[in-house]
């Protein structure tokens, strides 16, 4: 403390102050890519007590920061230079915005004197950031630099978390300032409104058929344990969103898995039949609700979320409480008399179990993923890409906590998985990190294999290959009269040879009887590994709520194996 105070008032370059603010916030890892306008900050980084991981594309750096944040609960940090460096961050920042991930992105900018002159590598990053960040800053005065960075960390992690961008012109990085730790405003925690708690409790105790709809907000709020206690006390049956997976332990009575477009049939039927929907840290996303007007149409709604703007946005709740779920959930936990409904939910669960019986030698991805889930050690993280494999992971794997399942949910960004897996491995080096990708998604950030090689990161890659952009193909098959426009990927590279160019060993399997041994090796071998799995291209994701339909009207499996 005394030493810290002695450092107050120290003169230093802006660039050195940036690194000092990061270390003051406990940042140990940064993901980034250098360039002209951020060179002073990279100079300050040289020899600093912060580890920087060089990505091979700024999108990869920012996704690694997201993966780091999501797997650990800490704020992720990424660096990029001006112009193309900053524009390459946009997709990842948008991903962090839609999935509420705390990330601080620091971009270099051309010097203040030439901003607005179309200087080399100049783009209006502040303007660009408005739609893809929770908040953003451009620092134009030396004495604003340190307070702005402090605010950035506060905003990224508080309330509903999100990405914050700080654009720092080169002259601000080079200029000198007197470092003073800013006095931070105390953020007042909202008080729990007891009247609303009473109203919600009344609805709960009156309900005959309540259902709990759990979203990613539970994990972000650190409210997994209060949620599990709430479920135990109330005995309320439950479903989860893609981001909510892991919040509820898999064997919890009445837990029906994921709801929505590719949710379990039991989950969707139960939600349609309920008379009270308790929505916790979720936001009535269209992939969850199907046709909104007919979603849980006979149910009253209690909506709990930290973000007041989500309350009533798409569905008007009978009771809405914006507040910290760690306070709200214990206040609502009360025992309920709903035995007949619990029995009905158990019956639905029994009736609509997954069927893993597939004749033939071709590998059935859902069965393989179920087997993988059972082989993973307790400390594991699964990072998905986007598409059919992502939905199979959500349906057929299980997770001990939300931080163990990283999936680009809101934005649905192909190319998320590999760099997010790198970030997850950096944040949890002892964990087994498996990237489950598809042959389409994998190629979107394939350059990050170099990042794995660079740090010899033991990231395991399970590449599920149907030589198709499978999810788009599935929709073409079902809704576009089998007109397969630009979804054939039969000219994929040899993925095992590709991995070997980055010193990553691997193998290809094509036959069901190869699966078990290959998964064992993938999970238990030292170092990185790529398991390339050829699957039957005819397999689609089932069940499916067609676009615009009610969740009650799920399409059932209609695959014919090739």
């Amino acid at each position: 403390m005394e030493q810290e105070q002695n450092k107050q008032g120290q003169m230093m370059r802006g660039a050195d102050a940036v690194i000092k603010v990061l270390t003051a916030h406990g940042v140990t890892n940064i993901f980034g890519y250098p360039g002209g306008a951020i060179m002073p900050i990279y100079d300050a980084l040289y020899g600093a007590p912060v580890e920087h991981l060089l990505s091979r594309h700024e999108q990869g750096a920012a996704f690694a920061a997201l993966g780091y944040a999501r797997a650990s609960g800490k704020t992720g940090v990424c660096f990029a230079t001006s112009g193309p460096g900053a524009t390459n961050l946009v997709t990842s920042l948008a991903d962090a915005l839609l999935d509420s991930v705390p990330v601080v992105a620091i971009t270099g900018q051309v010097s203040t004197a030439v901003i607005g002159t179309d200087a080399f590598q100049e783009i209006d990053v502040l303007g660009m950031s408005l739609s893809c960040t929770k908040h953003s800053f451009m620092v134009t005065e030396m004495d604003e630099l340190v307070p702005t960075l402090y605010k950035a960390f506060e905003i990224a992690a508080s309330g509903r978390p999100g990405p914050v961008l700080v654009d720092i012109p080169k002259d601000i990085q080079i200029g000198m300032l007197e470092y003073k730790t800013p006095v931070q405003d105390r953020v007042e925690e909202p008080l729990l409104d007891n009247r609303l708690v009473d109203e919600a409790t009344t609805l709960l105790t009156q309900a005959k058929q309540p259902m709990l709809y759990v979203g990613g907000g539970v994990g972000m709020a650190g409210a997994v344990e209060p949620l599990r206690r709430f479920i135990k006390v109330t005995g309320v049956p439950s479903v989860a969103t893609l981001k909510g997976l892991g919040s509820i332990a898999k064997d919890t009575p009445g837990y029906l898995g994921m709801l929505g477009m590719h949710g379990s049939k039991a989950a969707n039927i139960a939600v349609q039949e309920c008379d009270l929907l308790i929505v916790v840290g979720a936001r009535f996303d269209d992939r969850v609700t199907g046709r909104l007007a007919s979603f849980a149409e006979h149910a009253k709604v209690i909506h709990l979320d930290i973000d007041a703007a989500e309350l009533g946005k798409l569905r008007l709740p009978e009771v809405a409480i914006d507040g910290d779920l760690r306070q709200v959930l214990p206040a609502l936990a009360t025992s309920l008399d709903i035995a007949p409904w619990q029995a009905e939910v158990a019956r639905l669960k029994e009736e609509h179990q997954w069927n893993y019986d597939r004749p033939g030698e071709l590998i059935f991805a859902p069965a393989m993923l179920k087997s993988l889930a059972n082989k993973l050690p307790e400390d594991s993280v699964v990072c998905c890409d986007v598409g059919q494999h992502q939905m199979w992971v959500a349906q057929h794997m299980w997770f001990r906590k939300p931080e163990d399942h990283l999936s680009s949910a809101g934005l649905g960004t192909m190319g998320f998985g590999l760099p997010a897996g790198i970030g997850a491995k950096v944040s949890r080096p002892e964990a087994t990190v498996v990237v489950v990708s598809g042959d389409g998604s994998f190629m979107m950030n394939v350059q990050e294999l170099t990042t794995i090689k660079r740090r010899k990161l033991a990231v395991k890659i399970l590449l599920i290959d149907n030589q198709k952009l499978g999810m788009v193909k599935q929709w073409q098959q079902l809704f576009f009269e089998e007109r397969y426009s630009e979804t054939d990927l039969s000219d994929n590279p040899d993925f095992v040879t590709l991995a070997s160019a980055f010193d990553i060993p691997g193998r290809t399997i094509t036959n069901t009887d190869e699966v078990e041994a290959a998964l064992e090796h993938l999970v238990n071998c030292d170092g990185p590994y790529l398991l390339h799995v050829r699957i039957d291209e005819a397999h689609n994701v089932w069940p499916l709520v067609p676009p615009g339909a009610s969740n009650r009207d799920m399409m059932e499996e209609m695959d014919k194996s090739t």
Partner: protein
Amino acid sequence: MKHTVNLILEQRPEVLERVLRVVRHRGFKVTKMNMALADGKTAGVDMTVESDRGIELLTKQLDKLIDVIECNALAH
């Protein structure tokens, strides 16, 4: 339906863009607007917006903006 929205904002160069982006993106049209800098730290904006959507969808999103200090809406 038309509403008047009265805002008190942090005085930052980009704050008007920030507000107008949200207004457009959330499905509202600005039909009239006035802005004045106040005390060196804040700016006042009064605007009339039009939309079929409920005004709360806009005001809650504006309230979320870090640079929005106060946001009130009145129906016409």
